[in-house]
C-alpha cells in the first residue's frame, strides 16, 4: 500500500474512532458526580460480607469469575513463555552458548542496597497479600511485588544466588497448584457466604502471580544472559537492564 493511501486509511480510522469515542464519553455520567449506583451496592455488599476492602470484595467475591479468567490468562502466558523459551534456550546451548553470571561489575553501594532491600521488599509483598482484604492491595499486587523483588539479587550482582532462590521446577509446580487451588476455591465457594474466603483466594492468587512472574522474568533473563562464543556477547559487560529494577 502506498504511503498516501495508508495515511488516508489511518486518518479515516482515527476520525471514526474519535467520533465514536467522543459520543460514548459524552454519554457517561459527569466526572466526580454524586450518583454511584454500582459503588453503593458494591460497598454495601462488601460490608455485609465482612470484607473491609471493597475492591478486594469485588474482585474476589462479587465478580470472582472475572478474576478466575484473568488468572487463567496469566497462567497461559507463563506456560507459553516457559515452553517456547525452553526450546529456544536448548537450541542456543547446543550451538555452544553458555550462561553468563550476571553483571560483571556492580558497585558496592548497589550490592548493599540490593541485599538490604530484598528482605524488606519480600516482607512488604507478603504483607500486601495477607492484608489485602482489609487494606489496599491483594493477591495480584502482592504477587507482582514478590515476583519482581527476588530479582533485586540480580541487581546486587549475585545471579547464582538468584538461581538458588528461585528453583524453576518447584515454582512451576507451585504455579500450577496455586492456579488449581484458586479455581477450586472460587468454584466451591460460588453461592456460599464469603466470610474468610477472600484471604484464602488472595493467598492463592498471590502465590500464582508471584510464581508466574518469576518464571516469566527468569526465562527472559536466561535468554538475555546467554552468550554465544562467536557472537558479540561481550560488548556489554554490565547486564541487560541492570538499572530498570526498582523496589515496587
Amino acid at each position, binding site marked *: 500500500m502506498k504511503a498516501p493511501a495508508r495515511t488516508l486509511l489511518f486518518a479515516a480510522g482515527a476520525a471514526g474512532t474519535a467520533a465514536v469515542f467522543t459520543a460514548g464519553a459524552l454519554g457517561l455520567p459527569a466526572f466526580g458526580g454524586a450518583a*454511584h449506583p454500582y459503588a453503593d451496592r458494591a460497598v454495601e455488599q462488601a460490608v455485609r460480607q465482612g470484607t473491609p476492602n471493597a475492591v478486594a470484595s469485588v474482585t474476589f467475591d462479587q465478580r470472582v469469575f472475572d478474576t478466575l479468567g484473568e488468572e487463567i490468562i496469566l497462567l497461559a502466558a507463563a506456560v507459553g513463555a516457559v515452553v517456547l523459551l525452553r526450546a529456544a534456550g536448548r537450541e542456543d546451548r547446543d550451538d555452544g552458548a553458555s550462561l553468563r553470571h550476571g553483571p560483571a561489575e556492580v558497585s558496592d553501594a548497589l550490592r548493599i542496597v540490593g541485599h538490604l532491600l530484598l528482605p524488606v521488599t519480600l516482607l512488604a509483598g507478603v504483607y500486601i497479600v495477607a492484608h489485602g482484604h482489609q487494606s*489496599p492491595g491483594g493477591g495480584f*499486587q502482592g504477587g*507482582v511485588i514478590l515476583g519482581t523483588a527476588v530479582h533485586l539479587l540480580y541487581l546486587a550482582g549475585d545471579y547464582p544466588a538468584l538461581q538458588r532462590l528461585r528453583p524453576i521446577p518447584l515454582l512451576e509446580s507451585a504455579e500450577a497448584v496455586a492456579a488449581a487451588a484458586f479455581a477450586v476455591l472460587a468454584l466451591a465457594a460460588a453461592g456460599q457466604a464469603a466470610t474468610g474466603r477472600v484471604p484464602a483466594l488472595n493467598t492463592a492468587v498471590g502465590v500464582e502471580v508471584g510464581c508466574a512472574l518469576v518464571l516469566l522474568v527468569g526465562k527472559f533473563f536466561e535468554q*538475555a544472559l546467554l552468550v554465544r562464543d562467536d557472537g558479540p556477547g561481550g560488548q556489554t559487560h554490565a547486564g541487560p*537492564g541492570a538499572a530498570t529494577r526498582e523496589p515496587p
Partner: protein
Amino acid sequence: MNALSLDALSGPLADALIAAALAMAALMATAVVLTRSTVRQAIVLSGYGMALGLLFLILQAPDVAMSQFGVGTVLVPLIVVLALHATRRHRGGGREAGRAGGGDEGERDAGPGGGRGGRGARR
C-alpha cells in the same frame, strides 16, 4: 465513605491536582512515543507507568495504582529490556537481517549506560 471521597475529590485544589496528573500522564505518553531508541524507550515507559500510577493514586484508586506501579513501572520495562538484549544478541551473532529502523543506531550505543541515565532522570 461516599461523602468522604466526594469531599476529597472536590474543590479547586483537587481539580488542579487531577489536571496536573492528567497532563503529566499525557506528557509522559508523548515522550514514550517520541523516544527513538528502543532501550531508552523502555526506561521512559517505566516513567510513564509511574505517572499513570500517580494519576490512579490521586483519583483514589490505591489498588489499581499498586498494580500499575508493579507491572507498568517494573515488570513491563524489565521484560522489554531483556527481550531487546536477547534479540540484539541474535541479530549480531546470527548475522540476521535486522530491521533497519531509526532506532537501531541509538539502540546500539544505549545499552546499560542509557539505562543508568534514565534511572537518574527518573529519581
